[in-house]
């Protein structure tokens, strides 16, 4: 059975911290601090400077992701907190709290569920409403294996199953290695979780832009972000969004994926009867290319996710 290690995409940029799962490695020597009793509550009443202005329209109309659930499989226990500021005050906390709070700020009425990615247990889905699963982590192992050789835990097996069967929107951070998704990194490892999601109907790979793009001020891919690459199966499910690290102190595709998770939740509020695959396709088909510097599918996939476009009709009569 192949051993894999988890790598938090957001932390990679800052410190190249590798977090090993106890089941696989068990080499951590520092006992983790006790987990917070619950995810800190974020009250979103103002558009933060790092957010796309599209979000204001969603809030103005009073729709903030209600009736949907975003599940964060992330690091909620551990000893590697880091600092940042979503506009609600500087904090020092673990990766999972940063990612979940980011999405909660975008879609504050969505139900936020958390699962520590050390658990290895099946990810539960809400019985009704749209399910979104945010994956701001990777599963790295030495490059060169076939993805079918990976022995997944129930946790990842359930996530991959949901993506392939279209039971949940899977928003997956692309990675911070400046390589094409699905290829080996410079350190010779490969993200097999990303590989396993390629071709899945409701999976989205999310890369990071330096800023939110506009037609007058186009955005470019962040230097660290993985690209869509030449695999058309990746390109067709690859989105980019602005990650304004200069405003938040938080860089990495870890913080791109929650933005798309929040968008998916808001779209799910508007179209409560849509399937996760339909929500996924809506985000993909309405992405903008005219807000990106030298758009090409190899770099940007289908383009920059646009909440406003996703909510607006293609045509109306």
């Amino acid at each position, binding site marked *: 059975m192949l051993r894999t290690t988890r790598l938090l995409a957001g932390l990679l940029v800052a410190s190249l911290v590798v977090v090993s799962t106890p089941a696989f490695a068990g080499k951590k020597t520092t006992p983790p601090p006790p987990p917070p009793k619950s995810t800190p509550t974020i009250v979103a009443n103002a558009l933060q400077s790092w957010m796309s202005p599209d979000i204001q329209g969603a809030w103005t*109309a009073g729709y903030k992701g209600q009736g949907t659930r975003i599940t964060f499989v992330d690091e909620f226990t551990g000893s590697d907190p880091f600092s940042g500021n979503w506009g609600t005050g500087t904090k020092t906390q673990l990766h999972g709290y940063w990612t979940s709070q980011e999405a909660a700020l975008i879609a504050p009425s969505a139900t936020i569920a958390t699962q520590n990615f050390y658990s290895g247990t099946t990810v539960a889905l809400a019985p009704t409403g749209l399910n979104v699963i945010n994956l701001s982590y990777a599963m790295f192992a030495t490059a060169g294996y076939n993805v079918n050789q990976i022995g997944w835990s129930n946790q990842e097996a359930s996530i991959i199953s949901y993506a392939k069967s279209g039971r949940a929107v899977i928003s997956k951070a692309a990675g911070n290695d400046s390589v094409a998704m699905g290829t080996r990194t410079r350190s010779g490892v490969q993200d097999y979780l990303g590989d396993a999601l390629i071709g899945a109907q409701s999976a989205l790979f999310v890369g990071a832009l330096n800023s939110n793009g506009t037609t007058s001020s186009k955005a470019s891919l962040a230097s660290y972000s993985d690209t869509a690459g030449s695999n058309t199966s990746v390109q067709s499910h690859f989105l980019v969004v602005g990650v304004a690290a200069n405003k938040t102190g938080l860089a990495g595709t870890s913080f791109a994926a929650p933005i798309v998770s929040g968008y998916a939740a808001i779209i799910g509020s*508007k179209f409560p009867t849509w399937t996760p695959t339909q929500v996924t396709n809506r985000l993909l088909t309405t992405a903008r290319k005219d807000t990106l510097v030298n758009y090409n599918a190899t770099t940007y996939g289908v383009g920059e996710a646009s909440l*406003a*476009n*996703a909510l607006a009709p293609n045509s*109306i009569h």
Partner: protein
Amino acid sequence: MGAALLGATLALLAPALCYGQSGQRSLDLIDIHQGGGLSDLVHFLSFGGYELSGADSDGTPAFQSFGPWYNTYWRDFSAEWLLTLDDDFGITFGLSTGEHGEKYRIDPSVQLGFIAQAHPRPNATLTLTVATTLWGRLTEYPCEADYGNGLQTVNCRLAADPVDPAETLKYLLNEYPNRLSIRLTYSVAF
């Protein structure tokens, strides 16, 4: 433009019983105007719009303006007359043409009422004006929107908002004009 000018220049003063010769029955045109009321409400809706998710041929996002849906060449036109029956009592009646645009309709209406006066003092007049409007309902029509998963019936104005399309239909306008107007005035001549 023409409708606005007409409304501005031909609106007359509120009715009051005035006789050239005491006790003589007469019929007077007391008000004529275009627009106002529900027509103004709809006219206000014509401002604004939203970007569609599709792009024009030049690559820029297509924009859907509300103007074509809520503008009309003919604003609601109203005329009202006063039939004076005696020195202190008269009947008012009027007609409105109604109007319609691509996404709404205001039905024609009829106005009926009366004016009664009393003179509690020689130089004072107490006037009761009662008017009612029949019909004249404003109905807003929905749109068919394509969100990429088939057509959905939706409130045209809210189609790009993050609201369930079915939910937006609750906000379609379905308004009636002021049904009853009662006014009591007291005037003293110095």
